[in-house]
Protein backbone atom coordinates (compact mmCIF):
# COMPACT_ATOMS: atom_id res chain seq x y z
CA UNK A 1 0.00 0.00 0.00
CA UNK A 2 1.34 3.42 -0.91
CA UNK A 3 2.14 5.75 1.97
CA UNK A 4 1.66 9.49 1.97
CA UNK A 5 4.78 11.63 2.28
CA UNK A 6 3.48 15.18 1.72
CA UNK A 7 0.02 16.20 2.81
CA UNK A 8 -1.72 19.57 2.58
CA UNK A 9 -4.93 20.22 4.43
CA UNK A 10 -6.82 23.49 4.01
CA UNK A 11 -3.60 25.10 2.78
CA UNK A 12 -3.63 28.74 1.68
CA UNK A 13 -0.94 31.12 0.46
CA UNK A 14 -1.06 34.84 -0.26
CA UNK A 15 1.07 37.73 -1.40
CA UNK A 16 -0.30 40.51 0.77
CA UNK A 17 -4.00 40.65 -0.02
CA UNK A 18 -3.61 38.55 -3.16
CA UNK A 19 -4.88 35.08 -2.24
CA UNK A 20 -3.04 32.80 -4.70
CA UNK A 21 -3.41 29.30 -3.23
CA UNK A 22 -6.88 28.54 -1.93
CA UNK A 23 -7.75 25.80 0.51
CA UNK A 24 -5.65 23.09 -1.12
CA UNK A 25 -6.13 19.53 0.11
CA UNK A 26 -3.77 16.98 -1.39
CA UNK A 27 -1.97 13.79 -0.41
CA UNK A 28 1.23 12.95 -2.27
CA UNK A 29 2.33 9.32 -2.20
CA UNK A 30 5.95 8.34 -1.56
CA UNK A 31 8.14 7.35 -4.54
CA UNK A 32 5.78 8.74 -7.12
CA UNK A 33 6.16 11.44 -9.73
CA UNK A 34 3.51 14.11 -9.33
CA UNK A 35 2.92 16.71 -12.01
CA UNK A 36 1.35 20.04 -11.11
CA UNK A 37 -0.10 21.82 -14.11
CA UNK A 38 -2.32 24.77 -14.81
CA UNK A 39 -2.34 28.10 -16.65
CA UNK A 40 -0.03 30.96 -15.68
CA UNK A 41 -0.98 32.55 -12.40
CA UNK A 42 -2.93 29.52 -11.18
CA UNK A 43 -0.79 29.21 -8.04
CA UNK A 44 1.11 26.06 -8.94
CA UNK A 45 4.61 27.48 -8.44
CA UNK A 46 3.56 29.28 -5.26
CA UNK A 47 2.17 26.01 -3.93
CA UNK A 48 5.46 24.25 -4.81
CA UNK A 49 7.49 26.93 -3.04
CA UNK A 50 5.30 26.53 0.04
CA UNK A 51 6.31 22.87 0.31
CA UNK A 52 9.93 23.72 1.15
CA UNK A 53 9.13 27.06 2.76
CA UNK A 54 10.59 29.26 0.08
CA UNK A 55 7.34 31.21 -0.29
CA UNK A 56 7.88 32.93 3.06
CA UNK A 57 11.18 34.40 1.84
CA UNK A 58 9.23 36.91 -0.24
CA UNK A 59 8.26 40.05 1.72
CA UNK A 60 4.52 40.14 2.42
CA UNK A 61 4.04 36.46 1.65
CA UNK A 62 1.92 34.50 4.10
CA UNK A 63 0.47 31.03 4.35
CA UNK A 64 -1.96 29.11 6.53
CA UNK A 65 -3.31 25.61 6.93
CA UNK A 66 -1.49 22.34 7.29
CA UNK A 67 1.49 21.12 5.27
CA UNK A 68 3.15 17.95 6.53
CA UNK A 69 5.99 15.66 5.58
CA UNK A 70 5.74 12.19 7.10
CA UNK A 71 2.92 13.55 9.29
CA UNK A 72 5.17 16.27 10.78
CA UNK A 73 4.15 19.86 10.22
CA UNK A 74 6.67 21.46 7.87
CA UNK A 75 5.93 24.87 9.39
CA UNK A 76 6.95 23.62 12.86
CA UNK A 77 10.39 22.59 11.57
CA UNK A 78 13.49 24.70 11.03
CA UNK A 79 13.43 25.88 7.38
CA UNK A 80 17.01 24.65 6.79
CA UNK A 81 16.02 21.17 7.96
CA UNK A 82 12.94 21.29 5.69
CA UNK A 83 15.11 22.17 2.70
CA UNK A 84 17.45 19.29 3.48
CA UNK A 85 14.50 16.91 3.33
CA UNK A 86 12.91 18.66 0.36
CA UNK A 87 15.33 19.67 -2.39
CA UNK A 88 14.48 21.98 -5.24
CA UNK A 89 15.53 22.35 -8.86
CA UNK A 90 14.65 25.48 -10.79
CA UNK A 91 13.66 26.43 -14.30
CA UNK A 92 17.09 27.59 -15.45
CA UNK A 93 20.12 25.47 -14.60
CA UNK A 94 21.89 27.45 -11.92
CA UNK A 95 25.16 25.78 -10.95
CA UNK A 96 27.46 28.05 -8.95
CA UNK A 97 29.52 29.52 -11.79
CA UNK A 98 32.74 29.86 -9.82
CA UNK A 99 32.65 26.39 -8.32
CA UNK A 100 33.96 23.20 -9.87
CA UNK A 101 31.60 20.37 -10.76
CA UNK A 102 32.83 18.57 -7.64
CA UNK A 103 32.20 21.54 -5.36
CA UNK A 104 28.81 22.21 -6.94
CA UNK A 105 27.64 18.74 -5.95
CA UNK A 106 28.65 19.14 -2.32
CA UNK A 107 27.73 22.82 -2.12
CA UNK A 108 24.77 22.04 0.16
CA UNK A 109 27.12 20.61 2.79
CA UNK A 110 29.58 23.49 2.53
CA UNK A 111 26.87 26.14 2.74
CA UNK A 112 25.42 24.47 5.80
CA UNK A 113 28.86 24.33 7.43
CA UNK A 114 28.93 20.53 7.44
CA UNK A 115 32.51 19.28 7.30
CA UNK A 116 33.03 15.85 5.83
CA UNK A 117 36.18 13.71 5.38
CA UNK A 118 37.55 13.71 1.83
CA UNK A 119 36.61 10.06 1.26
CA UNK A 120 33.01 10.76 2.26
CA UNK A 121 32.87 13.82 0.00
CA UNK A 122 34.21 11.74 -2.87
CA UNK A 123 31.60 9.09 -2.23
CA UNK A 124 28.77 11.64 -2.18
CA UNK A 125 29.96 13.28 -5.40
CA UNK A 126 30.24 9.98 -7.27
CA UNK A 127 26.98 8.65 -5.86
CA UNK A 128 25.04 11.84 -6.67
CA UNK A 129 26.43 12.20 -10.19
CA UNK A 130 25.74 8.53 -10.85
CA UNK A 131 22.14 8.96 -9.68
CA UNK A 132 21.61 11.65 -12.31
CA UNK A 133 23.45 9.71 -15.03
CA UNK A 134 26.19 12.32 -15.24
CA UNK A 135 29.12 10.51 -13.63
CA UNK A 136 30.43 8.85 -16.79
CA UNK A 137 30.29 12.16 -18.66
CA UNK A 138 32.15 14.27 -16.09
CA UNK A 139 34.24 11.92 -13.95
CA UNK A 140 37.43 13.07 -15.65
CA UNK A 141 36.51 16.76 -15.43
CA UNK A 142 35.37 17.13 -11.83
CA UNK A 143 37.62 20.12 -11.26
CA UNK A 144 36.27 22.03 -14.22
CA UNK A 145 33.68 24.73 -13.65
CA UNK A 146 30.06 23.61 -13.82
CA UNK A 147 29.35 26.37 -16.28
CA UNK A 148 31.39 24.51 -18.94
CA UNK A 149 28.70 21.87 -19.18
CA UNK A 150 25.82 21.91 -21.68
CA UNK A 151 22.41 23.14 -20.53
CA UNK A 152 21.10 19.62 -20.01
CA UNK A 153 24.24 18.57 -18.14
CA UNK A 154 24.05 21.70 -15.98
CA UNK A 155 20.46 20.86 -15.08
CA UNK A 156 21.47 17.31 -14.16
CA UNK A 157 24.31 18.79 -12.09
CA UNK A 158 21.71 20.88 -10.24
CA UNK A 159 19.65 17.75 -9.65
CA UNK A 160 22.82 16.01 -8.38
CA UNK A 161 23.38 18.95 -6.01
CA UNK A 162 19.86 18.46 -4.65
CA UNK A 163 20.27 14.67 -4.48
CA UNK A 164 23.60 15.02 -2.59
CA UNK A 165 21.73 16.18 0.51
CA UNK A 166 19.81 12.87 0.50
CA UNK A 167 16.39 14.52 0.51
CA UNK A 168 13.14 12.58 0.55
CA UNK A 169 11.34 14.88 -1.85
CA UNK A 170 12.58 16.73 -4.92
CA UNK A 171 10.65 19.76 -6.19
CA UNK A 172 11.07 20.80 -9.81
CA UNK A 173 9.86 24.14 -11.11
CA UNK A 174 9.60 23.94 -14.91
CA UNK A 175 12.81 21.90 -14.96
CA UNK A 176 13.14 21.52 -18.72
CA UNK A 177 11.66 24.72 -20.07
CA UNK A 178 15.15 26.11 -20.77
CA UNK A 179 16.43 22.88 -22.35
CA UNK A 180 16.48 21.57 -25.91
CA UNK A 181 14.36 18.48 -26.76
CA UNK A 182 17.23 15.98 -26.38
CA UNK A 183 18.27 17.33 -22.98
CA UNK A 184 14.58 17.41 -22.00
CA UNK A 185 14.26 13.75 -22.92
CA UNK A 186 17.36 12.87 -20.85
CA UNK A 187 16.00 14.71 -17.82
CA UNK A 188 12.56 13.11 -18.25
CA UNK A 189 14.12 9.63 -18.34
CA UNK A 190 15.95 10.57 -15.18
CA UNK A 191 12.66 11.24 -13.40
CA UNK A 192 11.67 7.60 -13.83
CA UNK A 193 14.93 6.45 -12.28
CA UNK A 194 14.86 8.98 -9.43
CA UNK A 195 11.43 7.99 -8.23
CA UNK A 196 12.82 4.69 -6.91
CA UNK A 197 14.54 6.73 -4.19
CA UNK A 198 12.69 10.04 -4.03
CA UNK A 199 9.26 11.57 -4.40
CA UNK A 200 9.21 14.03 -7.27
CA UNK A 201 6.84 16.98 -7.57
CA UNK A 202 7.13 18.73 -10.91
CA UNK A 203 5.48 21.99 -11.86
CA UNK A 204 5.16 22.13 -15.62
CA UNK A 205 3.48 24.21 -18.28
CA UNK A 206 4.05 21.40 -20.68
CA UNK A 207 1.00 19.16 -20.57
CA UNK A 208 2.65 16.44 -22.61
CA UNK A 209 5.50 16.37 -20.17
CA UNK A 210 3.05 15.96 -17.31
CA UNK A 211 1.43 13.11 -19.24
CA UNK A 212 4.71 11.42 -20.11
CA UNK A 213 6.51 11.52 -16.81
CA UNK A 214 4.03 11.53 -13.95
CA UNK A 215 2.05 8.94 -12.06
CA UNK A 216 -0.43 11.47 -10.72
CA UNK A 217 -1.37 14.93 -11.92
CA UNK A 218 -2.81 17.91 -10.09
CA UNK A 219 -4.60 20.63 -12.05
CA UNK A 220 -4.66 24.09 -10.49
CA UNK A 221 -6.87 26.92 -11.69
CA UNK A 222 -7.18 30.37 -10.12
CA UNK A 223 -5.53 29.16 -6.94
CA UNK A 224 -7.78 26.16 -6.51
CA UNK A 225 -6.83 22.53 -6.84
CA UNK A 226 -9.50 21.61 -9.37
CA UNK A 227 -8.64 17.97 -9.84
CA UNK A 228 -6.02 15.50 -8.68
CA UNK A 229 -5.93 11.93 -9.92
CA UNK A 230 -3.89 9.30 -11.69
CA UNK A 231 -2.34 10.83 -14.80
CA UNK A 232 -3.94 8.17 -17.00
CA UNK A 233 -7.37 9.19 -15.73
CA UNK A 234 -6.63 12.92 -15.92
CA UNK A 235 -5.69 12.60 -19.59
CA UNK A 236 -8.38 10.16 -20.67
CA UNK A 237 -11.38 10.88 -18.48
CA UNK A 238 -11.01 13.97 -16.29
CA UNK A 239 -13.96 14.53 -14.00
CA UNK A 240 -14.01 18.33 -14.02
CA UNK A 241 -15.03 20.26 -17.10
CA UNK A 242 -12.30 22.84 -16.43
CA UNK A 243 -9.61 20.13 -16.53
CA UNK A 244 -11.05 18.78 -19.77
CA UNK A 245 -11.10 22.25 -21.31
CA UNK A 246 -7.52 22.91 -20.26
CA UNK A 247 -5.99 19.68 -21.52
CA UNK A 248 -7.90 19.84 -24.81
CA UNK A 249 -6.79 23.43 -25.40
CA UNK A 250 -10.35 24.80 -25.19
CA UNK A 251 -9.63 27.04 -22.27
CA UNK A 252 -11.15 30.51 -22.53
Amino acid at each position, binding site marked *: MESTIIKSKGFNASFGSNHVVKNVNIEIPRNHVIAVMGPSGCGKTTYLRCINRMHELIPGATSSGEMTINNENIYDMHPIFVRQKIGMVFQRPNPFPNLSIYDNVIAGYKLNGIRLPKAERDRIVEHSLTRVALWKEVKDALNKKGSFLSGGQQQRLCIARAVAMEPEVLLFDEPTSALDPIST*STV*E*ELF*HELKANYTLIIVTHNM*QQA*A*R*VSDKTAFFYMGELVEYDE*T*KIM*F*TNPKDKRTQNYITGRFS
Partner: protein
Amino acid sequence: MAQIETELQLLKAEAINMWTLVNSQLSKARLAFLNFDKDLAREVVSKEKRVNGSELKIDRDCENIFALFCPVAIDLRFLLAVLKINSNLERIGDIAEGIAKYVIDAEAHFTKELLDITRILPMYEESVKMLEDTQEAFEKEDTILARSVFKKDDFLDDINRQAHKVLERHLKDHPEDTSQALWLLSIIRKLERVGDQAKNVAEEIIFYLEAKVLKHKNKFV
Protein backbone atom coordinates in the same frame (compact mmCIF):
# COMPACT_ATOMS: atom_id res chain seq x y z
CA MET B 1 15.05 3.87 -23.36
CA ALA B 2 12.28 6.44 -23.78
CA GLN B 3 9.16 5.59 -21.80
CA ILE B 4 7.03 5.37 -24.95
CA GLU B 5 9.29 2.59 -26.27
CA THR B 6 8.76 0.57 -23.13
CA GLU B 7 4.99 1.10 -23.38
CA LEU B 8 4.95 0.09 -27.07
CA GLN B 9 6.98 -3.04 -26.36
CA LEU B 10 4.58 -4.05 -23.62
CA LEU B 11 1.66 -3.43 -25.97
CA LYS B 12 3.28 -5.53 -28.66
CA ALA B 13 3.72 -8.39 -26.18
CA GLU B 14 0.05 -8.09 -25.19
CA ALA B 15 -1.05 -8.14 -28.82
CA ILE B 16 1.05 -11.28 -29.43
CA ASN B 17 -0.55 -12.94 -26.39
CA MET B 18 -3.98 -12.06 -27.78
CA TRP B 19 -2.98 -13.58 -31.14
CA THR B 20 -1.78 -16.77 -29.45
CA LEU B 21 -5.00 -17.03 -27.47
CA VAL B 22 -7.23 -16.49 -30.52
CA ASN B 23 -5.17 -18.93 -32.56
CA SER B 24 -5.54 -21.51 -29.83
CA GLN B 25 -9.31 -20.89 -29.76
CA LEU B 26 -9.61 -21.33 -33.52
CA SER B 27 -7.43 -24.45 -33.52
CA LYS B 28 -9.29 -26.02 -30.61
CA ALA B 29 -12.63 -25.28 -32.28
CA ARG B 30 -11.23 -27.09 -35.34
CA LEU B 31 -10.24 -30.12 -33.29
CA ALA B 32 -13.61 -30.11 -31.55
CA PHE B 33 -15.28 -29.98 -34.98
CA LEU B 34 -13.06 -32.73 -36.44
CA ASN B 35 -13.43 -35.11 -33.49
CA PHE B 36 -16.94 -34.09 -32.50
CA ASP B 37 -15.48 -33.33 -29.08
CA LYS B 38 -18.15 -31.46 -27.16
CA ASP B 39 -15.96 -31.05 -24.06
CA LEU B 40 -13.29 -29.28 -26.05
CA ALA B 41 -15.98 -27.16 -27.69
CA ARG B 42 -17.25 -26.14 -24.24
CA GLU B 43 -13.69 -25.18 -23.28
CA VAL B 44 -13.53 -22.87 -26.30
CA VAL B 45 -16.83 -21.25 -25.34
CA SER B 46 -15.71 -20.70 -21.76
CA LYS B 47 -12.35 -19.20 -22.82
CA GLU B 48 -14.03 -16.63 -25.05
CA LYS B 49 -14.30 -14.38 -21.99
CA ARG B 50 -10.50 -14.26 -21.88
CA VAL B 51 -10.39 -13.06 -25.47
CA ASN B 52 -12.88 -10.32 -24.63
CA GLY B 53 -10.89 -9.33 -21.54
CA SER B 54 -7.70 -9.18 -23.55
CA GLU B 55 -9.39 -7.01 -26.19
CA LEU B 56 -10.56 -4.53 -23.56
CA LYS B 57 -7.11 -4.39 -21.95
CA ILE B 58 -5.39 -3.66 -25.29
CA ASP B 59 -7.98 -1.00 -26.14
CA ARG B 60 -7.43 0.66 -22.78
CA ASP B 61 -3.65 0.55 -23.12
CA CYS B 62 -3.83 2.07 -26.60
CA GLU B 63 -6.05 4.85 -25.27
CA ASN B 64 -3.57 5.58 -22.49
CA ILE B 65 -0.59 5.65 -24.84
CA PHE B 66 -2.43 8.01 -27.19
CA ALA B 67 -3.35 10.28 -24.29
CA LEU B 68 -0.03 10.25 -22.47
CA PHE B 69 2.61 10.08 -25.18
CA CYS B 70 1.09 11.70 -28.30
CA PRO B 71 2.75 9.15 -30.63
CA VAL B 72 3.79 10.20 -34.12
CA ALA B 73 5.11 8.52 -37.32
CA ILE B 74 5.75 4.78 -36.96
CA ASP B 75 4.61 4.83 -33.31
CA LEU B 76 1.29 6.36 -34.36
CA ARG B 77 0.83 3.83 -37.18
CA PHE B 78 1.72 1.00 -34.81
CA LEU B 79 -0.95 2.08 -32.33
CA LEU B 80 -3.60 2.58 -35.02
CA ALA B 81 -2.73 -0.85 -36.43
CA VAL B 82 -2.84 -2.58 -33.05
CA LEU B 83 -6.26 -1.08 -32.33
CA LYS B 84 -7.67 -2.47 -35.58
CA ILE B 85 -5.83 -5.80 -35.34
CA ASN B 86 -7.19 -6.16 -31.82
CA SER B 87 -10.73 -5.71 -33.06
CA ASN B 88 -10.20 -8.22 -35.90
CA LEU B 89 -8.69 -10.79 -33.55
CA GLU B 90 -11.61 -10.44 -31.17
CA ARG B 91 -13.99 -11.15 -34.02
CA ILE B 92 -12.01 -14.26 -34.97
CA GLY B 93 -12.36 -15.26 -31.32
CA ASP B 94 -16.13 -14.84 -31.68
CA ILE B 95 -16.05 -17.02 -34.80
CA ALA B 96 -14.14 -19.78 -32.96
CA GLU B 97 -16.78 -19.61 -30.24
CA GLY B 98 -19.54 -19.79 -32.84
CA ILE B 99 -18.03 -22.92 -34.42
CA ALA B 100 -17.64 -24.49 -30.97
CA LYS B 101 -21.31 -23.78 -30.26
CA TYR B 102 -22.29 -25.60 -33.47
CA VAL B 103 -20.33 -28.62 -32.27
CA ILE B 104 -22.11 -28.47 -28.92
CA ASP B 105 -25.54 -28.18 -30.56
CA ALA B 106 -25.01 -30.64 -33.43
CA GLU B 107 -26.64 -34.03 -32.98
CA ALA B 108 -24.21 -36.19 -34.92
CA HIS B 109 -20.72 -36.13 -36.39
CA PHE B 110 -20.61 -34.65 -39.88
CA THR B 111 -20.42 -37.31 -42.62
CA LYS B 112 -17.07 -37.80 -44.32
CA GLU B 113 -18.65 -37.30 -47.73
CA LEU B 114 -19.98 -33.87 -46.79
CA LEU B 115 -16.63 -32.85 -45.33
CA ASP B 116 -14.86 -33.99 -48.51
CA ILE B 117 -17.13 -32.42 -51.09
CA THR B 118 -17.26 -29.06 -49.37
CA ARG B 119 -13.45 -29.02 -48.80
CA ILE B 120 -14.13 -27.54 -45.40
CA LEU B 121 -11.16 -29.26 -43.75
CA PRO B 122 -8.45 -27.77 -46.00
CA MET B 123 -10.32 -24.49 -45.77
CA TYR B 124 -10.13 -24.63 -41.98
CA GLU B 125 -6.44 -25.54 -42.04
CA GLU B 126 -5.71 -22.66 -44.36
CA SER B 127 -7.56 -20.15 -42.20
CA VAL B 128 -5.59 -21.27 -39.13
CA LYS B 129 -2.39 -20.97 -41.15
CA MET B 130 -3.35 -17.48 -42.29
CA LEU B 131 -3.81 -16.38 -38.71
CA GLU B 132 -0.46 -17.94 -37.73
CA ASP B 133 1.25 -16.19 -40.61
CA THR B 134 -0.11 -12.80 -39.60
CA GLN B 135 1.16 -13.36 -36.06
CA GLU B 136 4.61 -14.29 -37.33
CA ALA B 137 4.60 -11.34 -39.74
CA PHE B 138 3.74 -9.00 -36.86
CA GLU B 139 6.33 -10.46 -34.51
CA LYS B 140 9.12 -10.47 -37.09
CA GLU B 141 7.96 -7.30 -38.86
CA ASP B 142 7.88 -9.29 -42.10
CA THR B 143 5.73 -7.62 -44.74
CA ILE B 144 6.52 -10.31 -47.35
CA LEU B 145 4.90 -12.89 -45.09
CA ALA B 146 2.01 -10.48 -44.43
CA ARG B 147 1.47 -10.15 -48.21
CA SER B 148 1.41 -13.93 -48.62
CA VAL B 149 -1.83 -13.96 -46.62
CA PHE B 150 -3.72 -12.20 -49.44
CA LYS B 151 -3.17 -15.12 -51.81
CA LYS B 152 -4.35 -17.62 -49.22
CA ASP B 153 -7.57 -15.69 -48.82
CA ASP B 154 -8.39 -16.37 -52.49
CA PHE B 155 -8.33 -20.10 -51.71
CA LEU B 156 -10.88 -19.60 -48.92
CA ASP B 157 -13.06 -17.37 -51.09
CA ASP B 158 -13.10 -20.01 -53.82
CA ILE B 159 -14.29 -22.75 -51.45
CA ASN B 160 -16.90 -20.44 -50.01
CA ARG B 161 -18.20 -19.48 -53.46
CA GLN B 162 -18.60 -23.11 -54.50
CA ALA B 163 -20.06 -24.43 -51.25
CA HIS B 164 -23.62 -23.46 -52.06
CA LYS B 165 -23.70 -25.29 -55.41
CA VAL B 166 -21.83 -28.31 -54.09
CA LEU B 167 -24.28 -28.73 -51.25
CA GLU B 168 -27.28 -28.08 -53.47
CA ARG B 169 -26.20 -30.91 -55.77
CA HIS B 170 -25.57 -33.22 -52.81
CA LEU B 171 -28.92 -32.49 -51.21
CA LYS B 172 -30.82 -33.47 -54.36
CA ASP B 173 -29.66 -37.04 -53.78
CA HIS B 174 -29.41 -36.89 -49.99
CA PRO B 175 -32.17 -34.70 -48.58
CA GLU B 176 -31.67 -36.40 -45.20
CA ASP B 177 -28.36 -34.45 -44.92
CA THR B 178 -30.10 -31.05 -45.03
CA SER B 179 -29.55 -30.25 -41.40
CA GLN B 180 -25.83 -31.11 -41.55
CA ALA B 181 -25.43 -29.22 -44.80
CA LEU B 182 -26.84 -26.09 -43.21
CA TRP B 183 -24.43 -26.39 -40.28
CA LEU B 184 -21.52 -26.85 -42.66
CA LEU B 185 -22.54 -23.94 -44.83
CA SER B 186 -22.66 -21.73 -41.75
CA ILE B 187 -19.18 -22.83 -40.69
CA ILE B 188 -17.83 -22.27 -44.20
CA ARG B 189 -19.24 -18.74 -44.12
CA LYS B 190 -17.55 -18.17 -40.77
CA LEU B 191 -14.21 -19.45 -42.04
CA GLU B 192 -14.50 -17.16 -45.02
CA ARG B 193 -14.88 -14.30 -42.53
CA VAL B 194 -11.73 -15.51 -40.71
CA GLY B 195 -9.92 -15.19 -44.04
CA ASP B 196 -11.21 -11.64 -44.46
CA GLN B 197 -10.21 -10.71 -40.92
CA ALA B 198 -6.72 -12.19 -41.40
CA LYS B 199 -6.42 -10.20 -44.62
CA ASN B 200 -7.44 -7.03 -42.78
CA VAL B 201 -4.82 -7.79 -40.14
CA ALA B 202 -2.15 -8.28 -42.83
CA GLU B 203 -3.12 -4.92 -44.35
CA GLU B 204 -2.67 -3.27 -40.94
CA ILE B 205 0.78 -4.84 -40.51
CA ILE B 206 1.84 -3.45 -43.90
CA PHE B 207 0.34 -0.05 -43.02
CA TYR B 208 2.29 0.04 -39.77
CA LEU B 209 5.61 -1.03 -41.26
CA GLU B 210 5.53 0.55 -44.72
CA ALA B 211 2.98 3.36 -44.32
CA LYS B 212 1.09 1.92 -47.32
CA VAL B 213 -2.68 1.73 -47.36
CA LEU B 214 -3.73 -1.45 -49.17
CA LYS B 215 -7.37 -1.40 -48.16
CA HIS B 216 -9.81 -1.57 -51.07
CA LYS B 217 -6.92 -1.95 -53.51
CA ASN B 218 -5.80 -4.76 -55.78
CA LYS B 219 -3.09 -6.38 -53.67
CA PHE B 220 -1.31 -8.05 -56.56
CA VAL B 221 -0.60 -5.06 -58.77
